[in-house]
């Protein structure tokens, strides 16, 4: 009896929080679909006006912004993933001098707020002649992503039984081969979870794009959305449509990988 009551309570609490999380999303989707000419309130429903998306796309110039975002995100996530796997392996399983110190230095990248780095980064990139290029968006984000990714992959690799790695060594496999052939297939959920997280963070990055690029072509989608919002403060429907366009890729990636994502998160929580 108690168990059933506990279950009902758990369901209720989780339901309430899910609603809190879902309501703004539903609200913005509904608003994006409203008739732009009638002045309905936020989140109310008055039909499906898909034309809003076309207007937002053209008005907001989202095509180039999304292209920019895709270039940055794909480069950052793919390079950071490979580097994180390799450094996570090294920190988890190799014994080398200064490993611990190096690891803590790397963790600093996770702990220092990005806002404190942005000004020095700005001047560094001007000196390097990389200001207002894709590199100004890509390189700093690879840095922060590898800090997290190494930490994440190290936690995973430490859960793999040592004997499996030793068996591979006795079988004549090099560290390189052990990593890619033996460990990586095991690490799939952890890697995919990391990919989703890095994708999300890189996609949503705003401050860096605001400071480091000037050319319109190079602007990423969230930055473009920022400017778009600035220009169209009155047209709530159009704003919502723009927001949905910018958020959609993250939702799609998450939807594709969510099964692995949840598995990775749960195993990380239990074992990591």
């Amino acid at each position, binding site marked *: 009896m108690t168990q059933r009551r506990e279950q009902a309570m758990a369901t209720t609490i989780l339901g309430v929080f899910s609603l809190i999380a879902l309501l703004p999303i539903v609200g913005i989707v509904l608003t994006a679909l409203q008739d732009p000419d009638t002045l309905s309130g936020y989140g109310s429903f008055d039909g499906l006006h898909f034309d809003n998306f076309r207007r937002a796309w053209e008005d907001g110039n989202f095509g180039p912004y999304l292209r920019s975002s895709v270039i940055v995100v794909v480069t950052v996530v793919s390079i950071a993933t490979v580097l994180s796997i390799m450094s996570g392996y090294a920190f988890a399983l190799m014994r080398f001098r200064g490993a611990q110190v190096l690891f803590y230095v790397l963790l600093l990248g996770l702990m220092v707020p990005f806002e404190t780095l942005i000004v020095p980064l700005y001047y560094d990139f001007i000196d390097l002649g990389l200001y207002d290029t894709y590199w100004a968006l890509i390189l700093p984000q690879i840095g922060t992503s590898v800090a997290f990714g190494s930490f994440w992959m190290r936690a995973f690799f430490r859960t793999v039984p040592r*004997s499996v790695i*030793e068996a591979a060594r*006795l*079988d004549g*496999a090099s560290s390189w081969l052990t990593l890619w052939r033996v460990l990586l297939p*095991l690490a799939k959920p952890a890697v995919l979870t990391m990919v989703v997280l890095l994708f999300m963070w890189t996609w949503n990055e705003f401050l860096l794009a605001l400071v480091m690029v000037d050319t319109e072509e190079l602007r990423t989608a969230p930055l473009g959305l920022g400017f778009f919002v600035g220009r169209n403060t009155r047209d709530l429907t159009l704003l919502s449509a723009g927001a949905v366009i910018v958020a959609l890729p993250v939702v799609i990636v998450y939807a594709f990988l969510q099964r692995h994502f949840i598995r990775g998160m749960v195993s990380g929580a239990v074992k990591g």
Partner: protein
Amino acid sequence: MASVSFKDVVKHFGGVTAVAGVSLEVTDGEFMVLVGPSGSGKTTALRMLAGLEAVSEGEIRIGDRLVNKIAPGERDVAMVFQDYALYPQMTVYDNLAFGLRRRKLSKQEIDRRVTRAGEMLDIGALLKRKPGQLSGGQAQRVALGRALVRDPQVFLMDEPLSNLDAKLRMQTRGEIKRLQHDIGTTTVYVTHDQVEAMTLGDRIAVMSDGALEQVGTPEELYDRPANRFVGSFIGSPAMSFFEVATQRDRDAVRLRGDGLELSVPGAPELPAEVTVGVRPEAARVWRDDEGLLGPLRGRVEYVEALGRETFVGVETGGAQIVVHHDGRASLLPGDEIDFGLVQADLRFFGTDDGLALRSENGAGPAPS
């Protein structure tokens, strides 16, 4: 196949010495078991032989080759791990083939070896499965198979049976023995289970606190333990011990302990104080016609009835002695019983150092 040799091998972990100067020769084709309680250094010794731990001091050779600095994959050894350590995402076939592919064997040769190992270990039907779909016993056989296909110079086994249930353990034990006998590959096998050691080993090396206590055949270890530790570790139930003062009495030696007194006729010279070691079968419930030393009187503390035989824990003069009785004994804890000792099977150890005191004809005193 090859011999294995440890020469004054030492292993330190930080300030802790796990292996303290071990020298051991394993001959070509021999089945050598390293046995000892946990923390005795047996696994560390095996891991140094595998190349998974660096040697702090001393030399390890496989055949004539000094292997101290040689990578595990190049030592031509194969290891069976306690937790099997199969590659979880590969099929059984790929698990067996992984090491062969690293050695650039032809596809046909790999196929031939895997199929043969599959037949020998009766895992032919499992080749397409993944380790997660195997029972403990099957996974164990696959782990053995992975070592077998490599056809290495030395097999290393680190407690490979300890995760199996008792029945399967016994069955697999027999199988490992048979396989090793058929193939004849030098094997170093680590276990904490002395029964496993006794049944498997051509020779056994008993370790404790990082040092070798004794190396010998199972019979030698059982009959002539080099010291009190080996006597107590090998054999089940364990050897019982009691301390006595000795006094020469013409041809005999009188042994006086706390509440017990024995006269041993024809005994050799013994120091003033000795520890007597008694195997359970050397202590029997008293019968006049058996020529036992005694009788000694004691109080029954526990009775272990195994059906075919019974072991009785008897407390006498502050010592506890396990007494053997054929068949069933109608005894209860608290009963007083008389028992006697088989003179030829008594073992004497120095009370100070625990070392065996030997006479010309073995460890025990000469029979009268």
